[in-house]
């Protein structure tokens, strides 16, 4: 019963019916019902967890950190020295963001974050990871072929740029501080935050100038 789908593929399976989504959905439903009957989980707590990661915690949090760093040099200096406290000042922290490091992109250095051993990701500032981040392809290739991976995201770097790949092998989580796009001098912190994308904070993309 080998699975013949790559793990970014979520389409229904017709061949041989191996783990079709309806099957796994039924298994999860049966498990939840058992655990509720046994008093092991509270279904309202499950709803609260899901609501947190669907509506409260996501890349908008990280974008606020980035915008603050762009507009407040003292904050940026503290963020780059030890990120956990300055990120907590904006209200973000906890599970999968207990120990934060922020790494800065410059014209000379481009940072890229991966977890080759599983899928570690800074949840409090970026939310849950996208499927591509958890995929076998990204996990295997980001460390050996970062420029090839970046090119697949449309990010092409000059030969002279140093690519720094951060493999999240411990409980330290990494957030990329992207370069501030040109032409944003007059923008407010809030407008700047709106320009910041998840992909730029993982390091697979650069930010475009507004309207560009």
């Amino acid at each position, binding site marked *: 019963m080998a*699975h013949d789908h790559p793990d970014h593929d979520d389409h229904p399976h017709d061949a041989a019916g191996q783990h079709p989504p309806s099957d796994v959905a039924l298994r999860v439903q049966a498990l939840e019902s058992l655990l509720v009957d046994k008093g092991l*989980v509270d279904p309202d707590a499950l*709803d609260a967890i899901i609501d947190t990661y669907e509506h409260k915690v996501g890349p908008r949090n990280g974008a606020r950190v980035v915008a603050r760093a762009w507009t407040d040099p003292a904050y940026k200096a503290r963020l780059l020295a030890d990120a956990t406290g300055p990120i907590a000042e904006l209200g973000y922290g906890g599970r999968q963001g207990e*120990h934060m490091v922020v790494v800065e992109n410059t014209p000379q250095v481009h940072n890229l974050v991966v977890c080759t*051993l599983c899928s570690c990701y800074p949840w409090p500032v970026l*939310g849950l990871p996208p499927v591509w981040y958890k995929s076998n392809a990204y996990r295997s290739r980001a460390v050996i072929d970062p*420029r090839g991976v970046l090119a697949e995201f449309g990010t092409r770097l000059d030969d002279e740029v140093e*690519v720094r*790949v951060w493999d999240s092998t411990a409980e*330290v989580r990494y957030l990329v501080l992207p370069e501030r796009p040109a032409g944003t001098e007059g923008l407010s912190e809030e407008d700047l935050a709106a320009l910041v994308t998840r992909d730029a904070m993982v390091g697979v993309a650069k930010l475009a100038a507004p309207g560009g």
Partner: protein
Amino acid sequence: MNGVHDMGGMHGLGPVAPEADEPIFHAPWEARTLALTLAVGAWGKWNIDASRHARELIPGAYYLGMRYYEKWLTALVSQMLQTGLITAEELASGRPDPGSPKADPPLTPERVDPALRRGGPADRPAEREPRFQLGDRVRARNLNPTGHTRLPRYVRGRSGVVEQVHGAHVFPDTNAHGLGERPQPLYGVRFTARELWGDAGHPHDVVRLDLWEAYLERA
């Protein structure tokens, strides 16, 4: 363990395929699986290192083909069976064993937000001075444990430079197996792409890993 989960540097696993406007969950069962994993985790029967190891123990051929939350589901069921939170009979029937007492869930709705905000910090008071300092040249030891480890194969035997000293962190290799937290110094170590990949590495590029002291020796 030298499992397929340790995939840094492998070839042949396909192109990266980002999905435009990707939803947070692709189906309700994914959301329920995430929530169940966190809520059952609140029983404190295991730690995050044990959970990672439970996912690594999924046989390689399945692991490579499974969707992410299928791995979580498989590991969750295996850990609940192993620790006795549920029995094989209950899993098969979908009903509590006759006469089994009903528990009180530790994670109530009002405790969710504080628990997520607290998280599970891995730093611990240092019991001794770190052996290595910033700028020291170190080599990742050629360790091949059959249990859990966070030392990827692709750095074993390779030399790098200590770039950050994080302080003492819980040691996953013991913690995953119920052998204690045994905190020890954790270091950020920089390896050049050339050191790791030979001529296939770009001359300007580096890879940076967080490695525990037991993984390292002086180079």
